[in-house]
């Protein structure tokens, strides 16, 4: 199976599913290892929401594939049997957690993007996409709120938390350009989302006395299946049982 055989609209859906799943996989590493019990629960809630979104998108992608190609794809074949070069997630989702500052800054940058995207997709002509966007945006609004609060808390907390937040922004900002550069995997003109996203980020950073980086080199490639070295490890761990016991039911 290869994404090359999938039509544009299927890759559009897979791109959304992959980003949600890979970030969920990363965030789930915090489960049982969080800095505070209440926050362990909170980040795990976000993880569960993202898995739910990924499942909705994969199920829809599978139904599109099966109806046109007479195949038998499922949410699990799409998540567990595609390769490093076939995954279409945004690069920022696969980067290591590093620390709590990186985790909440990434969540804030990504969820604020998802918020604008889902807002726009609520008006999409495809009923299924519209329905998933409408359901997901309620969750995403909470993710934005929670992560923005943490960015402010850490940015305006102690010297150490501020230092770590600055490091996180420096490391993660170069992966935000990809949000807004149009590729065939995008369902809509994503460049239109940038202004509202940047306004939101600027407001929150201002409250945390953090500055928004300017003129930074931007990495890209995730939407074309050209990833960082991290993705291969994520997939080999995530997919190992499905790969080791082909065809088994779980």
């Amino acid at each position, binding site marked *: 199976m290869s994404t090359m055989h999938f039509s544009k609209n299927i890759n559009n859906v897979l791109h959304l599913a992959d980003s949600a799943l890979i970030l969920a996989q990363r965030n789930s590493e915090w489960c049982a290892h969080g800095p505070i019990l209440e926050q362990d629960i909170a980040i795990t809630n976000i993880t569960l929401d993202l898995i739910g979104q990924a499942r909705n998108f994969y199920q829809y992608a599978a139904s599109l594939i099966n109806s046109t190609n007479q195949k038998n794809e499922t949410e699990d074949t799409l998540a567990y049997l595609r390769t490093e070069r076939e995954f279409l997630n945004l690069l920022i989702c696969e980067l290591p957690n590093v620390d709590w500052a990186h985790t909440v800054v990434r969540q804030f940058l990504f969820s604020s993007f998802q918020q604008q995207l889902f807002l726009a997709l609520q008006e999409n002509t495809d009923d299924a996409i519209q329905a998933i966007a409408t359901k997901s945006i309620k969750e995403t609004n909470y993710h934005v709120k929670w992560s923005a609060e943490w960015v402010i808390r850490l940015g305006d907390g102690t010297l150490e938390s501020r230092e770590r937040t600055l490091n996180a922004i420096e490391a993660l900002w170069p992966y935000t350009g990809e949000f807004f550069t149009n590729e065939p995997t995008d369902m809509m003109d994503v460049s239109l989302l940038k202004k509202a996203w940047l306004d939101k980020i600027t407001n929150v950073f201002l409250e945390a006395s953090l500055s928004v980086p300017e003129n930074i080199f931007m990495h890209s490639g995730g939407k074309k299946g050209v990833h960082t070295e991290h993705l291969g490890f994520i997939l080999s761990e995530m997919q190992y049982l499905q790969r080791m016991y082909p065809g*088994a039911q779980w």
Partner: protein
Amino acid sequence: MSLIDLEKSFQEKIDKEIKIEPKDWMPDAYRKTNIRQISQHAHSEIVGMLPEGNWISRAPSLKRKAILIAKVQDEAGHGLYLYSAAETLGISRDQMMNDLNSGKAKYSSIFNYPTLTWADMGAVGWLVDGAAILNQVMLCRTSYGPYARAMVRICKEESFHQRQGFETLLVLSKGTKEQREMCQDAINRWWWPSLMMFGPKDSESTNSDQSIKWKIKRKTNDELRQQFVNMIAEQIKLLGMTLPDPDLKWNEKRNQYDFGEINWEEFWNVVKGNGPCNKQRLAARNKAHDEGAWVRAAAIAYADKKKNKTTHKAA
């Protein structure tokens, strides 16, 4: 009222099934026993997240991944209710966390066993949560009010976990040859440690008598263990698997299952810190705690700043 009168009216309340509440007078030993038991129980929930959390990244389907994450998250929630219940007795969460991290406080020894295959997620749910539930159902009627109420909420979720665990194994038991072997192997490894979860035999248990008189416990270790064996010996038939005990046999006369002797040497070894994962579990808890220190400090610093700002504004 004299101490003797206080103790007498305390015991009368217990005998009349009136719950003891945080502000009520209680004997020191009752307070201490409850603090020890509730905090140990909370620690068990928190440490118990580790062996199952071990399989989140490798769960074999998206549905199983979501179920497993939700389950581990439930355990964090149980830990929270229980720490809060213990706090009503005058101990702080920080103190309890320190006792856990330093190795002073105990937690259920079962979590010092490793989760080696995916089938362990099923066996832990079915056997470990199954054993825990019998204890917890009893604790819904324990005499200390906040503990009993926490247990009512916890029991609802735990019985769900046990069914999920059984269903995980049921799917494996109907699967490929490798899956069936994986299923039997997990049952073999988790069976005896699950029986040990009920604690030492009644004849060897030091805390039992007083706890029963105070209705902290309502059944003895051996009664609960027997109840568990009777339940599991029937349920395993549905899986088409076996329990690793040649002495397991229905006893018509007793109307109970007979079962073999537990390896108490292993039990005490694990309690004393020599289980396969004692050191790893404690190290993982300490790592999370230490690496989270700057996050907690930042949250406190920010909250203080915000408070000062509001006070200044008000002034």
